[in-house]
């Protein structure tokens, strides 16, 4: 996005040409990938002509002027259907943009369409019975999942259908598809980016953030969307730093803790080796590396399931009573589980959350960032139920969520970025976790890693 914005600003490319080229790619590749739910071809071309006219008149909105993007289809977009990947909201056309969509429009971006997702964001596989199962662009041998819930965002960015997206992340829904599709995805600190106008899954765990090809592009999008919003009471009034300026390429002296138990040690062998190698590269670049264990994360799966199930049921109860047949089966089942979590159990889960927040804060008191796999496995085949991790057999769904969910629970910023490939040619994702509201350091570390490696520049053959 940074490079495209520069080329538009210097009139090396026309936004109209860029949009036309992307629409051609979508027409050619999306019937297989199923990354888009809605393509706004006419509106995008109209926006591109307007952006070009502004440019020719000497008015540039910023570094994203004339750059196309597409959000996951749970961001309200004025006049454009916002389905949440559901049949229930298939005909829902909002009257207003969500706060972050409006901010990106003011930054001069061009909305290309809306992207596929797990129905109502309630699943890490990224499957969708209503709009088709998104296919991972790296899956040459079989239909592998793109990961979810922001599956369309992961596949579309990886396949070059769009240079950037916004996903949402309640248990890993930005970082899981970023990991499985070989792109860079940032879940900011809880409270850093407004969720106003974004369909909720679980209010106390929901985060929104960018999905792009590099840390530099994530920094650019985050700069445009971050900051206080009176429409979202959880947003912070802390000033938004210059994330681009933080990308110095220098990690000398930064203290980096490699998360061992539950994370790296539990990953599949190829993932473990790639993450350890990434840690070593950062150490060679001057970071001070040590190892750390988080004792309480073993309780996160249960506690976060209790919280998400309860909050999700609260949002969906009326539809679940009136239109249960309109949910896809796995989402309907997960929503129904919420009816069996009682209030005391919900509060217990929030007590555990307080302890986990404290434990992660303590680990980061002596370190600048923590490293872990983003997912402990590469992209599974669609329908695969079990996998083998470093500590034995695991349910695929639990495995996908294992390394990301602790930081939804704790609210810390975390970024997924490619750090290698399996022997079968599937991307492997690294996760960098930082202190609350210190996205700048997280992005600095990922950017520095991307300056000394080329994993993030590789493209699937299908693209």
């Amino acid at each position: 996005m940074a490079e495209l914005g520069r080329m538009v600003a210097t009139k090396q490319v026309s936004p109209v040409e860029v949009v036309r080229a992307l629409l051609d790619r979508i027409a050619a590749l999306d019937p297989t990938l199923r990354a888009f739910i809605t393509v706004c071809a006419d509106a995008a071309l109209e926006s591109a002509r307007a952006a070009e006219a502004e440019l020719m008149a000497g008015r540039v909105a910023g570094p994203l002027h004339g750059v196309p993007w597409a959000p996951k289809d749970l961001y309200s977009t004025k006049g454009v259907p916002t389905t949440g990947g559901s049949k229930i909201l298939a005909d829902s056309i909002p009257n207003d943009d969500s706060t972050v969509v409006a901010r990106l429009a003011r930054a001069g971006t061009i909305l290309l369409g809306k992207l596929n997702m797990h129905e109502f964001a309630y699943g890490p596989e990224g499957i969708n019975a209503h709009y088709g199962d998104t296919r991972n662009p790296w899956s040459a041998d079989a239909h592998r999942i793109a990961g979810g819930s922001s599956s369309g965002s992961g596949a579309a960015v990886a396949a070059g259908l769009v240079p950037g997206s916004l996903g949402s992340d309640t248990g890993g829904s930005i970082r899981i598809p970023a990991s499985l599709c070989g792109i860079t995805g940032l879940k900011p600190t809880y409270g850093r980016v407004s969720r106003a106008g974004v369909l909720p899954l679980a209010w106390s765990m929901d985060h929104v953030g960018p999905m792009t090809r590099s840390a530099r592009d994530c920094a650019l999008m985050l700069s445009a969307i971050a900051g206080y919003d009176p429409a979202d009471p959880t947003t912070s009034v802390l000033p938004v730093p210059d994330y681009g300026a933080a990308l110095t390429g220098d990690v000398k002296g930064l203290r980096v803790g490699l998360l061992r138990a539950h994370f790296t040690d539990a990953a599949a062998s190829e993932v473990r080796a790639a993450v350890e190698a990434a840690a070593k590269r950062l150490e060679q670049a001057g970071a001070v590396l040590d190892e750390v264990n988080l004792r309480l994360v073993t309780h996160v799966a249960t506690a976060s399931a209790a919280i998400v199930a309860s909050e999700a049921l609260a949002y969906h109860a009326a539809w679940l009573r009136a239109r249960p047949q309109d949910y896809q089966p796995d989402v309907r089942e997960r929503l129904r589980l919420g009816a069996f979590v009682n209030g005391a159990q919900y509060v217990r889960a929030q007590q555990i959350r307080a302890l986990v927040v404290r434990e992660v804060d303590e680990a980061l008191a002596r370190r600048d960032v923590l490293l872990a796999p983003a997912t402990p496995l590469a992209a599974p085949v669609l329908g695969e139920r079990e996998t083998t991790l470093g500590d034995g057999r695991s349910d695929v769904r639990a495995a996908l969520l294992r390394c990301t969910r602790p930081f939804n629970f704790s609210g810390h910023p975390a970024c997924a970025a490619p750090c290698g490939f399996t022997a079968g040619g599937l991307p492997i994702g690294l996760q960098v976790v930082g202190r609350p509201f210190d996205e700048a350091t997280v992005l600095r570390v990922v950017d520095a890693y991307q300056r000394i490696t080329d994993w993030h520049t590789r493209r699937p053959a299908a693209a």
Partner: protein
Amino acid sequence: MLARMEISVESLKRTAALGGFAWTDAELEAIRPAVQRLLESLEQMERLPLGSVEPTTQYRVL
């Protein structure tokens, strides 16, 4: 802690009804194993010394 007894469809039906949900026996039977697993894992939380821990809502409004 005692091991949890197997949960019946009837007990699920009563709990669901308290929440205003009228699910059929077949629908409840389909989710019964998942509910059983969830409740067993929730019981594990009882083993943690959480008595005086203030629950969080995660709001970090600064």
